[in-house]
């Protein structure tokens, strides 16, 4: 315990000081990202705005927060908003950040939903939506492949990927059941002792 406190005190001057950012500034910056990040990949937009343009956090911390976001349930974009907002101004900062990043898309989809309900069965809309849905499948597959390239390291990883897909799509098990069963096997597979041997 004492060691930990000492370690923390020693580490403190090394970490970059958190710049004083106001709540409206946080809200506005995340609102802008929420309104302009067309085509997905919000994380890239976050990085260029918060790390490069504003220098609110450094790249190393950004990457660390991203790894927390990816492990936890929740979308990367909103988890990042919470984590960065908290670093900048505590809970109020988190709320400002997640509201800002969600509002533009939420309002847009609210309107889109109403328009689709009224006009979605028109001949032109039906045809266009067939093309849109097919392209969206390509997009989500591409996102998954890119994420996989970065996060999969071993052949065993592929086995866990395949087990998960079979569990959901072939055996028709519910997502939480597959998540818990395959997740537990994978976590035990990479249990701490194995880690030490590996490195």
């Amino acid at each position, binding site marked *: 315990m004492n060691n930990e406190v000492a370690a923390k005190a020693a580490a403190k001057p090394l970490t970059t000081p958190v710049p004083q950012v106001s709540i409206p500034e946080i809200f506005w910056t995340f609102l802008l990202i929420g309104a302009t990040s067309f085509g997905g990949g919000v994380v890239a937009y976050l990085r260029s705005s918060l790390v490069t343009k504003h220098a609110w956090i450094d790249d190393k911390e950004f990457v660390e927060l991203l790894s927390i976001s990816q492990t936890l349930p929740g979308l990367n974009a909103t988890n990042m908003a919470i984590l960065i907002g908290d670093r900048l101004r505590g809970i109020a900062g988190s709320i400002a950040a997640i509201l800002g990043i969600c509002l533009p898309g939420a309002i847009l989809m609210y309107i889109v939903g109403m328009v689709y309900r009224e006009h979605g069965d028109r001949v032109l809309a039906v045809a266009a939506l067939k093309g849109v849905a097919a392209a969206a499948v390509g*997009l989500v597959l591409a996102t998954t492949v890119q994420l996989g390239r970065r996060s999969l390291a071993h052949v065993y990883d592929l086995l866990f*990927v395949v087990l998960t897909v079979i569990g959901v799509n072939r055996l028709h098990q519910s*997502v939480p059941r597959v998540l818990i069963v395959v997740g537990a096997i994978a976590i035990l597979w990479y249990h701490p002792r194995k880690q030490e041997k590996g490195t």
Partner: protein
Amino acid sequence: MNQIPALVRVFAYLSLLTVGGGMAAFPELKVLTVQVHQWLTFPQLVHLYSVGQMAPGPNMMMIVAIGEWAAGLPGAVVVLLAFFGPTALLSLIVGRAWKRLEKWPWRTSIQRGLAPVSIGLLLAGCLTMAKAAIFGWITAVIALATLLILLRARVNPAFLILAGAVIGVLAFVH
């Protein structure tokens, strides 16, 4: 009938399944919103999800439309709170504890173990959606072309989805 309690339950539950991304919850989203509660049909869900890929911001904002269909403006607000509230709280708590967890050896094990499972869940979501969206060679070519272009070039995906819409109109309007 008041749908608000059901909306809260469904979307709070779904939010905890989005490990790796929103797509991970898609198979369960389909079962609950289409089969159990019948707020919309499966083609409608696929359409909303696909159109939602063009919207800026976090890519699951189509859930707002489901909330609005089921219970109007209050439904939309409730869905947002239910879907982002639980994971936001979890991020806040774990984010603050993360540094202290550094010495905990299982932290790395959990990260390493969940990475392939989350990829698997995303793929399973893609396959569930593909079953509804891919029929015949034209849609297969659109999906494959989008995938290959995105893996090889830096193009804004929103343009490719728009291109899909144009091809859809050209191919399917008789």
